[in-house]
């Protein structure tokens, strides 16, 4: 029994226990017991991942009632190193979310159904990277879909939007499943069996290979929330309970990336160039569109959802660049890009967990997730504010966070795709600079977005009574956030061993530990050691601190009502800049892409038309992809449905006519 074996075996046991506990325990203690068991399930998943990363073989098989559906009718879990990384991600995120749920879930989010769905969701997520064959993969995929759908619907009775979110989510998830099923079916049709080994051994060629790739990439892109199949994400994430949003955003969508890595690294490694170009476009557009929407959104959870689209876009971009570089023989740089992808995955998992849990904490304390109604929470909820700010630091890719390390590695791989000399390649020469620009624009807008989040939510003064009267949440909610924040900082400070593990997972070479705990990329002459950077900053800070402390002793801070305020007096907190106003310059600049709808009502005074009594301004952001791409399709579908209903108009003669026509046609065909 290896660690992997133990982990794989303990997962179904813990999932079963959690499921039973959710159904059996009464309302008052359900969250505590089921949440704890789910957290343990997450830890078991993480342990499995560690085992797999250590290269310990392990497997768990179970049989189905349909002989021949998979290899010998056996569904097998046998994670490899790549799967191991994702198992760790899923496990840790799942454990933190469940732990947070212990304190967070109550009422509609802590029903039997909700807590019973959680282990299904979590176990489904851990089956996907652990699966050893396509059918098991699909099984995990759909268990995950089922569990998350049930969790998503928790608060339907109080918020009408939940229903449409559930429908969108279910439909898009099923689209993803359908595409994957078709894609795997293509692969299986040309292979002898359904295991990854069998599929990789005899991949399809030519058009079939491309069909498989397009189908699989489409399916995974849908789950990963890439534009234009991202539409479920900004609907589902805000409506789900926050700990579920965290698990969905930080772990579940990541499995789309796992799938893409699986396909491009293992199943179809030698695809034509346009696959990579396609993915690059997909990733680039997602990154920019995602962060642009995020930057102009004031619903905190919707903002985080769009930010997820952005981050997943970056990951896909990295993967596409790796594929492109590989195809021109630049393996060493391609390896760096792959490591960047894995680092982005890990980093995003860590910081998005913190951010969604932070959003949940705020929601729990204030009942608000609209940034325009928050403010001043740093003083009311300092622990939440601090943890969330660290998450935001990573989301903005600033040092010394995990996000910075990941983005740095990504950029290093992008600028070193050397295409001069004999290996000159025009496509890369054009693609790489554009990619750098895309990544940079994304990074810039992410900076703005998360300054907005932290600045508007936590700083200054509360913009609503809810925000002003908020109270910090209990430790059961803040501690998981702190653990997550610790991971963000840890990964950001000591990226060396993480990068080594990431390199091992994707089979990359040329990644070395360097400095105190840093990472070196010899193939691109680059080195990053955040600890040293911090030490250097501390050294620089010493004289500053000395001067400040000495000056402070002489001239201490004096508290006044308002230091300057342009000579005015302090006015209503609602006159502060809000999230909407903060993003207003961007909305104007990207007006063509965002097309917001604005209403301006000016009420004049009775006395004169020159005197304004009241101005009402409303701005609504509508997802343009949804409006342009989905709404016509949906309208068409409903029209088809309405037209089709006329087929069954109740006339027995018409029905007989159908049968008669079928008979005549069959007779004609047979006679032919």
């Amino acid at each position: 029994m290896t660690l992997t074996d133990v982990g794989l075996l303990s997962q179904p046991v813990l999932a079963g226990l959690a499921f039973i506990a959710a159904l059996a325990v009464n309302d008052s203690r359900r969250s505590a017991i089921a949440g704890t068991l789910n957290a343990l399930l997450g830890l078991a998943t993480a342990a499995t991942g560690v085992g797999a990363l250590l290269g310990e073989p392990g497997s768990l098989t179970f049989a189905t009632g349909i002989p021949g559906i998979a290899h010998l009718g056996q569904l097998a879990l046998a994670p490899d190193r790549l799967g191991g990384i994702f198992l760790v991600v899923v496990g840790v995120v799942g454990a933190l979310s469940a732990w947070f749920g212990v304190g967070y879930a109550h009422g509609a989010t802590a029903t039997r159904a909700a807590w019973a769905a959680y282990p299904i969701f979590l176990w489904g997520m851990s089956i996907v990277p652990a699966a050893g064959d396509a059918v098991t993969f699909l099984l995990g995929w759909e268990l995950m879909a089922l569990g998350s759908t049930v969790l998503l619907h928790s608060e339907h009775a109080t918020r009408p939007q939940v229903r449409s979110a559930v429908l969108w989510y279910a439909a898009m998830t099923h689209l993803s499943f359908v595409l994957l099923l078709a894609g795997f079916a293509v692969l299986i049709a040309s292979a002898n069996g359904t295991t990854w080994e069998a599929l990789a051994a005899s991949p399809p060629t030519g058009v079939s290979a491309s069909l498989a790739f397009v189908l699989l990439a489409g399916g995974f892109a849908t789950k990963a929330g890439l534009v234009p199949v991202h539409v479920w994400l900004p609907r589902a994430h805000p409506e789900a309970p926050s700990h579920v949003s965290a698990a969905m955003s930080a772990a579940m969508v990541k499995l789309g990336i796992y799938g893409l890595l699986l396909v491009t690294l293992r199943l179809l490694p030698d695809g034509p160039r346009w696959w990579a170009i396609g993915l690059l476009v997909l990733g680039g557009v997602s990154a920019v569109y995602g962060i642009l929407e995020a930057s102009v959104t004031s619903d905190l959870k919707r903002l985080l959802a769009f930010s997820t689209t952005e981050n997943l876009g970056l990951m896909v971009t990295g993967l596409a660049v790796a594929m492109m570089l590989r195809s021109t023989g630049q393996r060493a740089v391609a390896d760096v890009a792959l490591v960047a992808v894995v680092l982005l995955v890990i980093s995003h998992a860590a910081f998005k967990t913190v951010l969604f849990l932070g959003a949940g904490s705020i929601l729990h304390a204030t009942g608000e997730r609209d940034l325009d109604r928050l403010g001043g929470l740093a003083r009311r909820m300092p622990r939440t504010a601090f943890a969330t700010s660290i998450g935001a630091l990573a989301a903005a890719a600033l040092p010394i966070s995990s996000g910075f390390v990941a983005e740095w590695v990504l950029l290093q791989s992008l600028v070193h795709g050397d295409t001069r000399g004999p290996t000159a390649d025009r496509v890369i020469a054009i693609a790489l600079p554009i990619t750098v620009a895309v990544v940079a624009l994304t990074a810039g807008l992410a900076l703005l977005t998360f300054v907005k989040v932290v600045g508007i939510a936590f700083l200054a003064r509360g913009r609503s009574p809810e925000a002003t009267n908020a109270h910090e949440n209990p430790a059961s909610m803040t501690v998981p956030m702190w653990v997550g924040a610790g991971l963000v900082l840890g990964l950001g400070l000591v990226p060396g061993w993480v990068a080594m593990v990431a390199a091992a997972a994707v089979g990359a070479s040329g990644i070395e530990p360097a400095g105190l705990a840093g990472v070196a990329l010899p193939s691109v002459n680059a080195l990053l050691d955040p600890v040293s950077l911090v030490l250097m900053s501390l050294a620089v800070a010493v004289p500053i601190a000395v001067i400040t402390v000495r000056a402070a002793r002489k001239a201490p801070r004096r508290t006044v009502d308002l230091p300057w305020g342009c000579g005015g007096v302090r006015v209503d907190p609602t006159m502060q800049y809000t999230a909407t106003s903060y993003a207003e310059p961007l909305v104007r600049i990207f007006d063509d892409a965002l097309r917001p709808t604005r209403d301006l009502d000016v009420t004049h005074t009775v006395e004169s038309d020159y005197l304004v009594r009241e101005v009402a301004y409303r701005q609504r952001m509508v997802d343009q992809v949804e409006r342009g791409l989905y709404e016509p399709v949906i309208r068409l579908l409903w029209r088809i449905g309405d037209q089709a209903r006329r087929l069954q108009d109740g006339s027995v003669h018409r029905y007989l006519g159908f049968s008669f026509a079928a008979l005549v046609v069959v007779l004609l065909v047979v006679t032919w």
Partner: protein
Amino acid sequence: MSLFLWIPLLVPAACAAAAATRRQARWTRPLGLVSALVILVTGLGLLGSITAAGGEALTAAGDLFRVDALAAYLLMTIGAVATVALWADLSVPAEPDGWFTALVCAFLAAMTLAVLADNLGVLWVAIEATTITTAFLVGYRSGRRSLEAAWKYVVLGSVGVAIAFLGIVVLYAATRSAGHPTLSWVELVRLAPQLDPAVTRLGIALATLGFATKAGLAPMHSWLPDAHSQAPAPVSGLMSGVLLSVALYAVLRLRTISDLALGPGFMRGLLLVLGVLSLLVAATLTLTQRDYKRLLAYSSIEHMGLMAVGVAIGGTLATTAVLVHILGHGLVKSAMFVQSGRILRAEGSSKVADVVGLSARRPDLAGPLLLGTAALLGFPPFVLFFTEVAIIIAGWAAGLAPVMLIVLALLLLTFIGMSRQVLAMTLGPAPDRSVDDSTVARLPRKAQAPVTVALGAAVAAGLVALPAAAALGAAVTGLGVTP
């Protein structure tokens, strides 16, 4: 042993007779469930013993009855589905109604006869008998709508099945000219290579089209939404859950003959057209469906279409998947019709628009509805997930990629339509009504049990390595399917 074969036929028949004669007696009420259980147990027993005997069939009544593993499996399925539907009916208190029980028992007997018969003609008679018994059951409530549904059902059903009989007659003619007039399955399979291809083609095509009517395949499906939505819930469950499948069973058998006589292409083409058309009809009509009982009926058409596609694909994997799908779909669908009947009773309307906020008001009604919908839509851990995956994979392997893409697209549309309507009923805040729903009695646990058990069985069937693996293998081998 051959005496054993009479039990599942005679017990329901006797129950029917008893209930018909003593219509007011309290003890007649559970007779339907008793019949179902008898069929289930004998089905299981037969399946076990036949599998143990290496798949050798049992015969009775001078070879008129013949049970191989496939027939035993179907028998078990009929029993299982009927148990669910009738147990659920029994779990709510009601006055004994002898006619109803008698008709249900007769219906069960007719289906059993269809499965037991080794003779195509007897099979036809049995299937027509199901039309006759269920016609009264569909029109049982005697309202205008029920009568209308019954009329359409009888006219369309009988005419359709008449076409099947024409096909059988033509097949019989073919065997006669081959020198050995017979309608026995075994003999037909043996004779198949010697049959005149042109005549056999005609016969098979007509018979398939005819049985497709009873199997609810488009374009012969038109009776189905009306009949299934108007029949009493347990009857709808039985009709949707197994009657359709019994007709499909006939098609499965026909496929074996057709493959041997005409090669695999003919039946495959025919069934693919029927299957895809059914999926199309189901997909387009669920999109904006306004009546939840009809929604379930269209879901049945969808599943029959998928099974028809599975039969068309052929081969061990697809055929096994179809057989398991029959069981899974039967269990879930009967549970769903039971549930929809309960919702109808509680809400007083079968319109989707009239049912609002069910989850918030009546979680006891909404919960099983949502779970069952998930099962019908092919979510794991329910068995229909595995069968759908298996059918698609097998189809691709059989070189039917374009068809499979169409099938998947249509399944997606059905998914959207179905989940849209069900979510519209269940999710959302409870409306402000004068009736305080909290005072409405919840369903007792006893009444919930059948639905729960059915859904549980639909899970178990997929995940547990059934000893049925061997049995299914025997059933598929019995069909003469070549891998």
